[in-house]
């Protein structure tokens, strides 16, 4: 609900950092140069799966200006067990005897001049004994080709413990959910439908490529890194080094985009090792092209089966979701579980069975990417919904509405749904598309259609945020948080929340950027969690500060409600302009981990992310080319704490998912990426945005969120792809099951449908 009385909440306060950014003064790790700093350039594997017979670094080492060439043997001297990862300790800092994807780092050249380092990389050669490789997730489920000999789960996730030491499998995690009796449900259903859908491998493409600087000296380490999770980096680096956390300092200035890529630990382990080996500060900055080998979004094969009664009630559903995790698990097992438990869609279904598998393959690693698996699952379940409605002859909105989960009803895990404006979002999209009005479909070469989809996601849990509000002696305020400002506007929103409690202007609050020596713990800037989790911690910390102000007033003998300005209180207490009032708070939402066998949980998620999308398309049936003439995204963000920032979050996520839907795909030949540059991997430009592009939030409230707010960063990624796929079907009557939706696929499907298939590819 809009709080018109507030000068902070519900106001489109301009970004606090806007001036710094547009004048080019904002601080990024790419700008950082430390005295004596070396640059590291990476020599990468040219084969997808092999034993390394030898690496010849002699010519590189001999090049004038090269400080040192480093392989895993050198790294072991500094870090005896050089394996890292958030879910599994499966990723070596540099290839260790084996390479598991083409593009994997094998050696690093260090030089004071990055160009010399790059030239020396070209002088390194490696001899490989090639091994059979596996690239497809379904094949990898049963393949004899094993990417890892043994599973090595990290201790940080207790629910992965049972996987330790497992051998002979590529399945890194299997998640299962059972609700009711699906077999009986199918047997009793009037109709049963089964379809398989696939999502492709795509990449985050932050405009600021990955970059980290490590400065290790005298038993201490400072990392300056483009990371979304400085607290996690500190913990994981401290574990690798066997040091206490207080000897590792992680600083993050602004980030030029993260989208889930810069999470957990990426280049930080490598630069740390290099700095320890070289005893100099070391910077590694990837090129745009190298980013394709860092982390990507999971390809996914999803087979979904539904039992449906004549009246349109879905009575049973089974989901088999296979996630291609690439060569290293990264956070894939979490994606498997979190997107797994919502993979039956936002529907009220009595009998549900879900099997979700994280699988290793010989591709670049896959991790979190804006939506944490929800876009891949929604692509399947929302295309499936349209196919069922089509077969039953039901209106596609009415069919969804009939089955939609209502607040107060249990989701498949058993968690009671609260504050999820699913129906409102769906209705608002239908309204913007004039769903009940006829559409001019065309009768010639150009055909028009429209499609709609709705989806939801659970939020990573349980996660903790800690905030510190520091009131200085003149009454001004610093807000100490480890939330990373990566373009989403978190500095502004967090300042708004603190300001609301402290009765100040948001713009007057200084937000102190992550520095683990200074700012307190936060699990990470990820998964739409900051507004809800950190926002709550900030609110509580500000309330704590207020409480302490009141205590100070009482201590000074002031009558209740005397409302003396804070600087005056400090002066009375300390006799001069001195002192601080420090408010602190931490927040961890209620959570119950899912039962290992049934997947049930009474508290599976802190809140629900909700997004609905609609699209109108026109298709040239002679060529398969199509144009999205109208694209509508509606999200439930609770109270929009800053409507302008909500707007740009929704449109930004929408444009990103538009690329993942229409043009983007990492294409391989024999395990080699063939389009790993922005010349060939096509992301949308401003001119590719549909002429009518509507992004809105519904009027809603997250009752336990800070001032009614919740996350907004991923909502429009969820339902966008199926909305477009459904619109294409509506226009030309062919169903594409595999992303991305290319003109060639459409044209081939049209030829197939006409009985005149086009010759092979």
């Amino acid at each position, binding site marked *: 609900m809009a709080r018109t009385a507030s000068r902070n909440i519900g106001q489109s306060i301009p970004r606090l950092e806007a001036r710094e950014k547009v004048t080019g003064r904002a601080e990024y790790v790419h700008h950082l140069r430390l005295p004596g700093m070396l640059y590291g350039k990476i020599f990468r594997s040219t084969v997808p799966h092999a034993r390394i017979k030898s690496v010849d670094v002699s010519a590189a080492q001999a090049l004038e200006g090269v400080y040192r060439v480093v392989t895993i043997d050198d790294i072991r001297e500094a870090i005896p067990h050089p394996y890292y990862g958030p879910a599994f300790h499966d990723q070596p800092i540099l290839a260790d005897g084996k390479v598991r994807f083409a593009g994997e780092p094998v050696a690093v050249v260090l030089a004071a001049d990055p*160009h010399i380092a*790059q030239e020396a990389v070209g002088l390194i050669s490696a001899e490989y004994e090639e091994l059979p490789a596996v690239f497809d997730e379904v094949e990898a489920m049963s393949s004899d080709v094993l990417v890892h000999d043994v599973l090595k789960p990290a201790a940080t996730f207790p629910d992965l413990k049972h996987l330790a030491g497992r051998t002979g499998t590529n399945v890194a995690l299997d998640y299962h959910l059972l609700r009711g009796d699906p077999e009986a449900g199918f047997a009793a259903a009037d109709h049963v439908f089964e379809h398989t859908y696939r999502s492709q491998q795509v990449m985050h493409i932050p405009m600021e490529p990955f970059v980290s600087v490590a400065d290790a000296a005298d038993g201490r380490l400072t990392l300056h890194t483009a990371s979304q999770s400085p607290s996690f980096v500190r913990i994981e680096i401290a574990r690798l080094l066997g040091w206490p956390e207080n000897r590792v300092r992680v600083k993050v200035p602004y980030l030029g985009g993260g989208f889930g890529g810069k999470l957990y630990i990426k280049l930080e382990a490598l630069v740390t090792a290099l700095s320890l080996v070289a005893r100099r500060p070391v910077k590694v900055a990837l*090129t745009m*092209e190298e980013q394709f080998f860092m982390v990507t979004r999971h390809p996914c094969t999803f087979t979904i089966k539904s039992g449906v009664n004549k009246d349109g009630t879905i009575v049973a559903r089974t989901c088999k979701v296979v996630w291609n995790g690439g060569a290293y698990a990264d956070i894939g097992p979490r994606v498997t579980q979190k997107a797994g438990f919502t993979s039956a869609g936002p529907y009220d279904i009595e009998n549900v069975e879900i099997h979700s598998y994280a699988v290793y393959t010989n591709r670049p690693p896959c991790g979190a990417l804006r939506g944490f698996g929800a876009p891949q699952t929604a692509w399947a379940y929302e295309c499936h919904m349209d196919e069922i409605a089509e077969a039953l002859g039901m209106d596609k909105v009415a069919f969804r509405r009939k089955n939609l989960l209502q607040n107060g009803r249990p989701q498949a895990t058993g968690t009671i749904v609260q504050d999820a404006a699913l129906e409102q979002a769906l209705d608002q999209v239908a309204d913007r598309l004039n769903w009940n009005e006829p559409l001019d479909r065309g009768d*010639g*070469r*150009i055909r028009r259609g429209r499609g709609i989809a709705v989806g939801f996601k659970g939020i990573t849990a349980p996660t903790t945020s800690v905030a510190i509000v520091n009131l200085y002696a003149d009454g001004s305020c610093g807000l100490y948080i480890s939330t990373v400002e990566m373009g989403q506007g978190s500095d502004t929103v967090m300042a708004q929340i603190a300001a609301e409690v402290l009765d100040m202007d948001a713009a007057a609050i200084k937000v102190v950027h992550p520095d683990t020596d200074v700012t307190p713990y936060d699990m990470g800037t990820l998964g739409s969690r900051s507004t809800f989790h950190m926002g709550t911690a900030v609110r509580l910390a500000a309330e704590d500060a207020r409480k302490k102000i009141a205590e100070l007033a009482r201590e000074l003998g002031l009558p209740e409600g005397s409302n003396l300005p804070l600087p005056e209180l400090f002066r009375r207490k300390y006799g001069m302009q001195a002192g601080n009032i420090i408010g602190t708070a931490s927040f961890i939402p209620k959570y119950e981990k899912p039962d290992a066998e049934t997947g049930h949980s009474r508290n599976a998620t802190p809140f629900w992310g909700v997004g609905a999308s609609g699209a109108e398309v*026109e*298709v*040239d049936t*002679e*060529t*398969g*080319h*199509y*144009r999205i003439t109208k694209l509508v995204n509606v999200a439930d963000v609770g109270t929009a704490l800053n409507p302008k920032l909500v707007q740009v979050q929704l449109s930004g996520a929408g444009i990103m998912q538009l690329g993942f839907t229409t*043009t983007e795909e990492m*294409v391989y030949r024999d395990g080699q990426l*063939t*389009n790993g*540059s922005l*010349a*060939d991997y*096509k992301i*949308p*430009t401003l*001119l*590719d945005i549909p002429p009518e592009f509507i992004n809105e939030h519904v009027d809603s409230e997250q009752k336990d969120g800070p001032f009614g707010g919740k996350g907004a960063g991923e909502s429009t990624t969820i339902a966008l792809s199926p909305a477009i796929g459904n619109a294409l079907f509506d226009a030309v009557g062919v169903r594409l099951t595999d992303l991305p939706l*290319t*003109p*060639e696929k459409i*044209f*081939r499907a049209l030829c197939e449908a006409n009985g005149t298939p*086009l*010759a*092979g*590819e």
Partner: protein
Amino acid sequence: MKAPDFDYVRVRSLDEALAALAAHGEGARILAGGQSLVPALNLRLLAPEILVDIGGIADLSGIALADGTIRIGAMTRHADLERSPEIARHVPLLARAVREIGHPAIRNRGTIGGSLAHADPASELPACVLALEARIVARGPSGERTIAASDFFRGLYETALGPDEILVRIEIPAAAAGERFAFHELARRHGDYAMAGIAALARDTGAATLRIAYFGIGSRPMLAAGAAAALRDHGASEAGAAAAVRALGADLEPQSDLQASAALRMHLAGVLLRRALKDLFPDAAGGREEEIA
């Protein structure tokens, strides 16, 4: 990535440029607008010893009409072609085609000579000069020579230019009364390279002088001579169009890449031909087609 090391010289005259080419041979590359060369360097697809920047040679740019011929200097920017009233009036095909080249920033820097000499098979201008029967003038150590556009494009990024030659201008017969053109392209994104494109020109109202050129189909821009002959024989009727589309099978050598398969490209070539015929001969072919943007 960044480009490998190279030397750089900005020359003041053609003679200076030719001297630099003579000195470095195959190791030298001419830098014109840099819109293809610089990305190719940065992707390390090319590693020349030296770049010879001809941007400082004033008399290499400009558009002039004399004796029924339009002469376009090699360093004339796409944006200049786009804004030129002479081009709009006398070479309307070119005026139409340059709008599809990349984005404004690219058109502000890119040059016609650079585009032709680079000979990217997916570029618009090489196909246009084929359709226009342009003459390409090169200067080498022994003076100027003129190369017919149809002899100029030899293969993927390959032209008739010798390593010691510089493309200096393009000569195009000015449009005669009754001349018609058609231009279409299909791309995955706004401003992207074509996955299939056509540039066609008829010097009069009939099909007798028709020239049909394709880009984005094979390894070089190609004239569809068989299709044009079929249209000369049958006219632009439905029968003529069908014969022409059939003839494309022998005219073109479509290739597969990330954007489209060879089979789809061959199909698109036929679709584009029919669309072009509707533009060129609206009466015979039954009017223009509706379009999506």
